[in-house]
């Protein structure tokens, strides 16, 4: 790790000001991604603007037909929240399946979404549920937010403050973990809200999270695992590495989608 300046702002506004002032500064959330990269000297921010002391950035509440989660809310808190478990159990289960207890107790939803790791779990939920990302500057629709591997719509100096998830009628997440990292090799989040069915896939795409049109079309007709029988997902544009070929990932997408649909309907 190289030397850096450290700031602990008390508000989002102060954080934004500090971020603007410090060229090459970065906000620090749970630090689960940022700190290991700094330790390995792969990142060398001039300053860390620590969001852990900024007020009003964490917490979970139900607002009408939405679940609103502060950006600094830890995975463990989402996983165990009575509000989330009641209204959006698929999201609680997803959060409970991230990393290990230490990671879940530090890692945050804002950090995960801002980072947009192509194998992270949260992006699939954000995209499938059509969530809205609220920053210190604006509101961004999920469909516009994720812009490829580790790339998002966030502009320089923009800080995620909260994420608002519309409550679906049915939803579930099914993750096939990478055997080593246990990030998603293929993770599929299915959500049904009225006639609208969305299927978001993480881990598989070489451009990060995406919606599977094939699965969505099949499930729009009838929201049932059987509808996915024979659905083939194209391997083009999918990741290939030592853990899985593009073909294997393509194969796993409908398999995981089926299991997610079964799970969504079982509730």
């Amino acid at each position, binding site marked *: 790790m190289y030397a850096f300046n450290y700031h602990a702002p008390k508000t989002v506004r102060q954080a934004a000001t500090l971020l603007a002032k410090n060229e090459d500064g970065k906000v620090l959330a749970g630090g689960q991604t940022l700190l290991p990269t700094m330790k390995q000297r792969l990142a060398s921010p001039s300053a860390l603007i620590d969001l852990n002391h900024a007020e009003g950035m964490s917490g979970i509440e139900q607002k009408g037909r939405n679940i609103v989660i502060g950006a600094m809310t830890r995975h463990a808190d989402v996983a165990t929240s009575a509000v989330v478990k009641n209204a959006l159990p698929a999201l609680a289960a997803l959060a409970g399946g991230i990393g290990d207890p230490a990671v879940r107790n530090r890692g945050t939803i804002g950090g995960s979404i801002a980072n947009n790791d192509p194998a992270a779990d949260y992006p699939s939920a954000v995209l499938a549920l059509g969530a809205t990302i609220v920053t210190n500057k604006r509101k961004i629709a999920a469909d516009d937010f994720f812009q490829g591997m580790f790339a998002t719509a966030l502009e320089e100096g923009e800080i995620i403050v909260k994420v608002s998830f519309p409550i679906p009628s049915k939803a579930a997440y099914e993750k096939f973990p990478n055997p080593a990292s246990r990030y998603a090799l293929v993770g599929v989040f299915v959500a049904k809200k009225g006639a609208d069915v969305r299927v978001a896939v993480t881990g598989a795409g070489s451009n990060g999270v995406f919606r599977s049109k094939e699965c969505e079309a099949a499930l729009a007709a009838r929201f049932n695992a059987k509808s996915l029988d024979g659905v083939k997902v194209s391997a083009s544009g999918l990741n290939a590495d*030592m853990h899985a070929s593009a073909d294997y990932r393509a194969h796993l997408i409908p398999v995981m989608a089926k299991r997610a649909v079964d799970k969504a309907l079982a509730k």
Partner: protein
Amino acid sequence: MSAKTGVGAPVLRKEDFRFITGKGQYTDDINRQDQAHAYFLRSPHAHATIKKLDISAAKSAPGVLGVLTGDDLAADKIGGLICGWMIHNKDGSPMKAGAHPALAQGKVRYVGDHVAVVIADTYAQAKDAAEKIVVDYQVLPAVVDMNKAKSSAAIHDVAPDNVVYDWHLGDKAATDAAFSKAKHVTKIDLVNNRLIPNAMEPRAAIGDFDAGTGVYTLYTTSQNPHVARLVLSAFVGIAPEHKLRVIAPDVGGGFGSKIFIYAEETVCVWASKKVGRPVKWTADRTEAFLSDAHGRDHISHAELALDDKGKILGLRVQTKANLGAYLSTFSSCVPTYLYAPLLSGQYDIPAIYVEVEGIYTTTAPVDAYRGAGRPEATFLVERIIEKAARETGTDPATFRRKNFIKSFPHQTPVIMAYDTGNYTASLDLALEMADYKNFAKRKKDSAKNGKLRGIGFSAYIEACGIAPSAAVGSLGAGVGLWESAEIRVNPVGTVEVLTGSHSHGQGHETTFAQLVADRLGIDIDSVAVVHGDTDKVQFGMGTYGSRSGAVGMSAIVKAVDKVIAKGKKVAAYALEAAEKDIQFKDGRFSVAGTDKSLAFGEVALQAYIAHKFNGQDLEPGLKEGAFYDPTNFTFPSGVHICEVEIDPDTGTTDIVKWTAVDDFGNVINPMIVEGQVHGGIAQGVGQALLEGAHYNADGQLVTASYMDYTMPRADDLPSFDIGMTNTPCTTNPLGIKGCGEAGAIAAPPAVINAITDAVGHEDVPMPATPYAVWQACQKGARKLAAE
């Protein structure tokens, strides 16, 4: 002496209170006054010549005390690291061992190779300064694929074709003759995947030169501190033995990887004199992945000849063994003498012929890793046996039973003479415990749920109790493999046991104390076990090859017997009786036929005060030592049965049942033995399903972190059903065979035999990841469709 702590009792581990309350003293916990920190600049290339190495900017960086390179080593006449086992080629010529300098001398040969060391006040300063070292590399082609190594760029001038040795064992003519009579020949091609040991505690070292006495002290994460001292003194030339003390304090796991003498401890101890300060280094996890000696990595072809009744006539094996970029301390013997002599397995095989090529590649050195050669042998034997059973339409248990060795002692055609065993007994118990007879029904039930169920056997043998010194000497070993022990009885009868064995997770503080307390009839808490310091223990060969029980404890009982003999002499004086009338039992010396007796502690006191005898007739004191050299290896064996259920949609393998029946001979502490079995199976399942070191074509280690290298986790493993049979070893006084490696040896073929049974063909690699098994399922499906 209470039955609760005697030999055979599941005594809780004495050392665990210290460990689980964070009171262990590992090398990194030790801090010397004024210590400085070392950072090793490592090669980013697999293979390159160093055209220029400019350290000037680094030398003047803040906090830097010294920047040392291979030139400095040469100037100080510090020798290279050695390989302590000479292997000879088929033609009798010696193997080709390239030089192994602790810091590069003109060339780097794997990613992670040591280019230079920076020593500074803090670790961060050393690391910062290392970034200022300018290295001009001329990159050479990486050599990663063993099959192409012969025609690739030479890694060492001495071995232009990258072949270290071309070795063989067995009778070729007899084996060819056996094959010419064969009714059926089973053939198999196997890859034994490369593993990275991953001890929980990374390697670490502190070199501390005392200018006042001229003595160097090295604190290091070693499984055998005396061997480290011997090598660093006699071969590397750091200092003569009496001026070099090596301390291996608490060590957090080794699995073989801490047997070897590495560049880092060599440099730290040497550099401590150069910079005039203690020098400390602790590997980070990335360094551990890159530079700990790796394990396994074989490519083999084997053929098994059968007669018309399914009896084995002969076995033919060709193996290429990856030895990495340099020959690590014992690397040369692992794929030769620790491998080929085990290829008879539990079977009566009249003729065996094995050829092994040791190959240099531009990868980390490969050396002994839990099991060392024996897992590779067992994997080969048990895979080809299973395949032969399938090809001849024989039940795999029946096929094994038919070919088991049934009378002992048994001389195999590949050196080993098995003293004892009862393979049928282990198989019978395992079949019973695994409910083998109802397997077909379970398979049907799985099929109903869309799952593929399979069952796999592994009837393993290993050679432990390493090793008879003269025998290994005749095979090329540079050292003897006896063990030493000393029993120091204190005046009030408490006891210190000094042992040349080294505990780094095995629980010696408990089992050794259990044995000594039992023999002397004293309380287990009156016995302390001392190990891991060359200033305390005179000499020893350390712990590996499941030798601490069979060899280390045998040395201890030999010393205990001497203590009792001396005690009888003392007691004779104290009890005013003839020595021949003194009996020792349950912790008391008594005069036969009388009620006169003294407790062990009372005799100890008499020995030290020496009031009752004349010091010229009998020496005062009570302290005895012994060296024990085994007369044979020991041969633990057993049968493991693995049952799997595979989800063909994802390729996920679920181990639904694990039966392990082991014959370890006599057991001192069954709880510790079960722990060893659990850990061994976990590592074996790791090899079979999860772990695999992977270098890309450029020689970069792709699996250099836990993001890509899959360590077994608790939820990857089933609950184990453990059973034991016992045919005591006949060649050591305790009847112990050893248990430390059995699980890691037995498990891989059991898993792969189960998976190949489930998918219906033999083409399943290790690690059998979901991706690999899914591919295997696709192949199986195609085959079925074609039929």
